[in-house]
């Protein structure tokens, strides 16, 4: 059974049809990288996968059922750390509010996850005082601490200064190595090449091509993919 699955998902905002029947699935431990021009529906697809948006029609399932609260982790382009909480409080917040843990238990786990992403020394700092790379790593810890079955990343490095991209990609790579199921929207093609199980090209609300990275980058079949890759690379 696939871990995470979208079945003929449609979504429209007012007059714009953003997703026009998207079907795809991620097996346990797979990393799928989504690329495509802006407005092609990548972010909307991620939001539908973690039920931030309810699809107009079609199904989203996690291990064959509807995802529960906090079961699919989401990392945003602009981090979206809670500005009124320190790094450790950010990571604790879901455990306390959603999982019902005591503050002491939550703090213990939060510190452990901050260590995993290498920002334990910033535990008491507010987001305002952290670099973009540090903020994004805290955001990853905040999602991971909920023990999600799958993690979604929506352009996690595109708001970062160039020299901070690496530290975030490193964390994501080690997550992938540990067997986390991931869907990543990103134009970091080296990362895609390196880490992805397969790469998907989206255009105008549809998935137009899916292939393992070697094949995808070396010999794309679709004209749309070729054109896009020639612009990105």
């Amino acid at each position, binding site marked *: 059974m696939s871990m995470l699955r979208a079945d003929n998902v449609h979504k429209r905002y007012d007059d714009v049809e953003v997703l026009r029947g998207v079907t795809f699935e991620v097996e346990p431990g797979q990393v799928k990288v989504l690329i495509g021009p802006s407005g092609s529906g990548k972010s909307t697809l991620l939001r539908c996968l*973690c039920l*931030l948006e309810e699809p107009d029609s079609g199904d989203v399932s996690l291990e064959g059922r509807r995802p*529960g*609260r*906090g*079961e699919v*982790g*989401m990392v*945003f382009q*602009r981090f*979206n*750390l*809670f*500005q*009124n*909480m*320190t790094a450790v409080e950010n990571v604790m*917040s*879901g455990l306390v*509010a*959603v999982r019902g843990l005591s503050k002491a238990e939550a703090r213990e786990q939060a510190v452990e996850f901050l260590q995993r992403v290498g920002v334990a020394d910033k535990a*008491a*700092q*507010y*987001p*305002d*005082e952290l670099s973009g790379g540090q903020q994004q790593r805290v*955001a990853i810890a*905040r*999602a991971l601490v*909920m023990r999600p079955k799958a993690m979604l990343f929506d352009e996690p490095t595109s708001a970062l200064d160039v020299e901070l991209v690496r530290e975030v990609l490193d964390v994501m790579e080690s997550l992938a190595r540990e067997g986390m199921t991931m869907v990543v929207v990103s134009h970091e093609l080296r990362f895609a090449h390196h880490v992805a199980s397969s790469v998907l090209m989206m255009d105008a609300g549809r998935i137009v091509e899916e292939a393992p990275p070697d094949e995808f980058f070396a010999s794309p079949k679709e004209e749309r993919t070729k054109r896009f890759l020639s612009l990105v690379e």
Partner: protein
Amino acid sequence: MLASFDTHLFWEALSSSPYWRGALTALELTAASLTTAVVIGFFVALGVLSARRSVRSLSWIYNWLFRATPTLLQLYFIWYALPQLWPGFAGSWFTPFMAAWIALSLNEAAYMSEIIRSGLLSVDAGQELAGRALGMTRRQILRKVIVPQAVRIVIPPTGNEFITLLKLTSLASVISLQELLTAAGNLATATFLYPETYLSALVYYLAIVSVLMVIQARLEKRFTWTSGGRRRRRVGAPAVPAISHDAR
């Protein structure tokens, strides 16, 4: 320069019991009304932002009713008309202070709701998104994430509202509330020494507002999210709709 100024009377008025008590009444009425107004205003603000049309309309009507009519009329209405409409308000519990508290709270809530609404809207939409992605309920997101951040934006205009309300309490003298301006007026009429009596009342107002400004500065610092509590950058002034107090 001055034709005559009775310094002795000035100090005597300043330390006299009617002034003290009047100032205390004004301060109590202001604090009580503002607190109540913040609570009512918060729910009216949520109403204005509600997805339900009927709730939005009700909230809009509330704001329209209390902003479009003079505060003085509202005071008169609560004090004189309400007991005739509902005998429950004719009891001994319904003191001038109670009437003024109700009137000023209802009136101020309309203004506070606008301030709170813009405060809530000023919080980045990504904050709510992140809360939902973690699986928090809307109520949890509001309580733990949105409201604390909106507080920082709401404090400065609320300070202004405190000052406005403090001055509005003098209106309550028309429904025989013994507040600060009543005390000054009484002494002025008794002594015919207007500069001394009114100046000492003025000193009280200035003192109260000064203390408020210190408290406000502390609160702002408390709700600025850096570990040292120091302010690194000023949060931009909120887009609070310009509210004219002159007409109140």
